[in-house]
């Protein structure tokens, strides 16, 4: 199996789907001649032509709304937001038109919205957001957030083939940093199944996206404690069984994400555990997240708000000692 970066894996997955299924097409700002702000669609316009790699005008509602229309007509559009942050400009089409379409009138909307998300590179308040919880709180959307190249490719394929609108969060910090073996050809990682990134028995860290790597690093050597790391991969549907199984096994859970705290995905996971695995808990469910504040630009400030390896270590050690 070839080794790829996370970025290459996304690109590869998208290319494979476009080669295989001519209803798949891409739309977004600067994805054509420029190959996208992050070069995910580099070379695509040469292979697939400008119709299937549409350099759309600067209008996110237009991009998402047009995708809805094309999707209900049997196409499988893949929208790129230039940064996840700009999805706020296409929010209405996503949460009101795409999300509610099937419930209201039985029409499938097989579209994917790619969101280059997350911070860690001085992107500042408008190029670092992690907006996943908005979409978890908008029924009718599926939401995925891969952490590895192999998952990035397989989840993208699954998102594209799914008959529902899927919000696909690709963490910018992983683009060139995460590397791993990625199978050639087409394959799918099913939506809604978490992955045990490391097995363990004394404590579980539940996370997703870039923070999975922080979780692994932080718990790699925790005075010999056996720490399980659960990579959610999919936030909607959420793999409740996997979360509860791990919580029941280890009895101690830290939930870790980069998004801001209040009403984040961590709250949902903690609430789920507090309701369904209460009897099995040997300690509080601890959240490690960004505080409720925008992501600052300047490196010392940004480091202070984004969860760091040490923050996770500390939280885990405290909970282990509980």
């Amino acid at each position, binding site marked *: 199996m070839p080794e790829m970066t996370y970025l290459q894996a996304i690109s590869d997955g998208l290319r494979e789907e476009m080669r295989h299924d001519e209803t798949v097409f891409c739309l977004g700002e600067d994805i054509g001649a420029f190959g996208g702000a992050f070069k995910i669609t580099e070379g695509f316009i040469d292979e697939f032509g400008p119709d*299937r790699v549409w350099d759309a005008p600067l209008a996110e509602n237009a991009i998402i*709304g047009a995708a*809805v229309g094309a999707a*209900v*007509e049997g*196409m499988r559009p893949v929208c790129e937001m230039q940064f996840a942050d700009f999805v706020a400009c296409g929010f*209405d*089409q996503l949460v009101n*038109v795409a999300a509610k379409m099937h419930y209201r009138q039985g029409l499938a909307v097989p579209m994917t919205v790619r969101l280059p998300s997350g911070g860690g590179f001085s992107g500042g308040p408008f190029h670092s957001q992690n907006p996943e919880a908005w979409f978890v709180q908008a029924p009718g959307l599926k939401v995925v957030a891969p952490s590895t190249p192999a998952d990035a490719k397989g989840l993208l394929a699954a998102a594209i083939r799914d008959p529902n609108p899927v919000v696909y969060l690709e963490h910018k910090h992983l683009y060139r940093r995460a590397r791993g073996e990625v199978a050639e050809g087409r394959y799918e990682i099913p939506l809604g199944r978490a992955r045990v990134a490391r097995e363990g028995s004394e404590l579980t860290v539940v996370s997703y996206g870039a923070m999975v790597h922080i979780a692994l690093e932080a718990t790699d050597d925790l005075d010999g404690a056996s720490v399980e790391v659960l990579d959610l991969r999919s936030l909607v549907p959420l793999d409740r069984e996997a979360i509860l199984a791990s919580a029941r096994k280890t009895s101690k859970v830290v939930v870790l994400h980069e998004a801001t705290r209040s009403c984040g995905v961590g709250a949902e996971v903690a609430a789920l555990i507090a309701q369904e695995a209460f009897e099995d808990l040997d300690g509080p469910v601890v959240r490690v997240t960004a505080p409720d504040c925008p992501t600052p630009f300047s490196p010392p400030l940004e480091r202070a708000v984004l969860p760091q390896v040490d923050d996770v270590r500390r939280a885990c050690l405290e909970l282990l000692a509980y």
Partner: protein
Amino acid sequence: MATTTARPAAIDDGAAGIELTGDDRIALLRYMLLMRATEERGLTLYRQGKVPGSFYDGRGQEAVSVGSAFALGPRDRACILHRDLGAHLIRGVRPGRVLAQMMGRASGVTAGKDGNMHFGDRELGCVGMVSMLPDMALVACGLAIAFQMRREPRVAMTWFGDGATANGQCHEAMNVAGVRRLPVVFVLENNQFAYSTPNEREFAVDPVRRAEVYGFPGVKVDGNDVEAVFFAAAEAVERARRGGGPTLIECETMRMHGHGAHDDMRYVPRELLERWAARDPIDAYERKLRADGVDTDAIRAAVKAEVDAEAEWALAQPMPDPATAADGVFAGADPLLGDGEAPWSRWRREAAHA
């Protein structure tokens, strides 16, 4: 089709060879009457407490939706607005299903999931509107993008109101349509008000003029003249079908009822209402066809009988099963849009030639 009555003469637009046969013209009247009768029945049911929530209709605007939707072919697609029941009827939605929809019955178009005019029958090529206006204009652009990509000679039609022209999505849609020369027809129903807000608080300049700055034709027609609307729409639809790009058609009309049944319209000058009442689109067309010898009373009677029967059917439909309330949030498969009815005689002729 009311075939018992004498047929009026066929007419055409004098230029592009777009023709309405006598039967077509009778159909236009019949659909307008059917829309009005269905909405009147809906309003009665609302007043009887059988329609939950609010009630919206298109009283006075029948010529807009009927005239424009009549120009669509079976494989064309429509995103229909809350004032446009006529368009649904033309696509083939039965009045009974509309009334069941209003009453939240299981046999309504959305099976009780949504209400009012927030529906579209996917089996008839309709994508039901959302409440946010004019979001469907962008969805229509997306439908048109699919047609364009697949090189299919098909057209998407979308309706929006004068109020919706102030919204950013209206601009995004017309701009994208202009840049890509999409096969989409924008029907702007200027009924003078957005809820209580009059035109002069919505825009400074007649929005039909925007078409030129998006790079496509904009035409303004008398929205109470069903044939004028039809010819403008047919020309736009056929231009789009031939790859000639989008058109904006502004239909000048008047909302003769309140925004919803709860609205007493005290903000509308009585004199304005009276002026428009004298120009009722159905009365005017009925006079025209009657002058041509058509027995419009017979058509009216047939429509009334049809709506009576449909209402009876609707009232006999059950409410949805509460156990299904949270079903269908996600799709398990990819049901596609089906094709709609297309009563314009052109389509029968084309089918015969094919």
